[in-house]
């Protein structure tokens, strides 16, 4: 009984003399290999050479600072609650007097950890962030030997003051438009007077 119409009959043909010799087939294979010598090489010399990433590529996270170098993150927990892999944990603390240049808001993240082994790089944290603090970048998370090293703390996540991480590709026109809006307190420029 035929169960499907995809079944094939197996043929039991015997090989001819030239086929049994294998030599034509071997030469044909050699010719294919040889022809590749004259083709363009797809391999690149990473990390000296890097491919261009798509603007929507989601790699290692960065915690941005604002234009005065203060941390934008206020430890609101929206990223952690949005995270489907539960990779983000944080502890908050209250900003003291004199730390206005360090932290943008009254509350800040004392610790902020992302477990890169858990993270699935979906970008929901970035979408949930009300303070434009967390962004996924086109950087790769490097390999490590220990599991502990994959838990990234603030030392690895917050961008260095002297070396800002470029996220302009991820800030869509809508986002930039939203940031220009007056009256939204967290989007207005940090008051210079407060720094003194």
């Amino acid at each position, binding site marked *: 009984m035929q169960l499907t119409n995809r079944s094939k009959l197996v043929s039991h043909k015997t090989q001819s003399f030239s086929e049994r010799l294998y030599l034509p087939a071997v030469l044909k294979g050699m010719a294919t290999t040889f022809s590749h010598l004259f083709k363009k090489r797809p391999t690149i010399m990473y990390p000296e050479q890097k491919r261009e990433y798509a603007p929507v590529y989601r790699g290692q996270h960065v915690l941005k600072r604002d234009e005065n170098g203060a941390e934008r993150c206020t430890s609101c927990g929206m990223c*952690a609650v949005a995270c489907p892999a539960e990779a983000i944990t944080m502890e908050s603390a209250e900003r003291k007097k004199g730390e206005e240049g360090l932290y943008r808001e009254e509350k800040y993240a004392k610790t902020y950890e992302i477990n890169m082994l858990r993270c699935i790089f979906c970008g929901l944290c970035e979408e949930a962030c*009300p303070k434009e603090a967390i962004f996924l970048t086109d950087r790769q998370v490097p390999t490590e030997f220990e599991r502990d090293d994959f838990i990234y703390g603030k030392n690895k996540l917050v961008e260095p003051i002297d070396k800002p991480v470029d996220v302009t590709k991820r800030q869509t026109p809508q986002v930039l438009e939203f940031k220009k809006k007056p009256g939204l307190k967290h989007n207005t420029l940090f008051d210079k007077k407060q720094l003194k």
Partner: protein
Amino acid sequence: MKVTIDGIEIDVPKGTTILQAARMIGPEVAPPTMCYYSKLKTSGGYCRTCIVKVTQGSTANPNPMPKPVASCRTEVMDGMVVQNITSPEIIEARKGVVEFLLINHPLDCPVCDQAGECKLQDLGYEHGAAKSRYEFKRREYEVIDIGDKIKLHMTRCILCYRCVKVAEQLTDGRVHGVVHRGDAAEISTYIQQAISNDFSGNVIDVCPVGALTDKTFRFKQRVWFTKPMDAHRNCKKCSGKARVWFKGDEVLRVTARKDQWDEVEDFICNECRYDHKKTADWTIEGPSHISRHSVISQNHYEHLNELKVQLMKQQKALGFMSIDKKP
């Protein structure tokens, strides 16, 4: 007295307000409230969130009322017909009320400890507009300590007067009230006097927004990462029935239990609230019921234990398990 709210008829005793009648029917038709508190006398009538349309005053006088009325302060009449969510006019008017409540609100929810259990957040989400049209400077105040356990963020206050009613009715000797008038009105104690009364901590629970918050819980954890448990202890001052909020094994804060209208069931004393933050101090009854629409219910498996028991029973019935193990 027969009253019809959103097409549902109910028989209520004389003297019932429209809001109470609507609550008797159920949460679907009950108007939202920001200032009314059934446990506090003379509360309500300030925020206008609970406005409803009365399309028929009574059987004796079937004329409609000319304007929307505050349902928390309006008593029912026999044969009254009320529209709440079925009236587009009311939905629109409530949107306006929310806009007014939010005019001076700083919208600092990412910083605020009340976020996640804030009634103004819920109200804005359910009834408000997505954008604010207000372009002027919002009023600003310094953050004040009321006593050593309560923090007052006057910027967030919507002047519902609930805390004032608590100070008046629950605690003896009123040390906390509203000073100034109109736009300049603010909650204050006389020259930041410490509230020393045993029940003063309840102002935190009655506050619908994050204006009055627990200093011992300040910035400790976002509410939705903590697990609420119903627990009790022997207390000489109050009933001792409280809600204990855990993170891991640690008690982060203690509040009173709240019912489905977000109102405190039993007011608790300051000793229970602030001084007993060890698991050993409490007899845990079980996880608190949190509405699944609340963000606090994320990752809560309220019925997990029941499921475990059922699974055990099934396994026992099938002969997989012989030992009488408790889940």
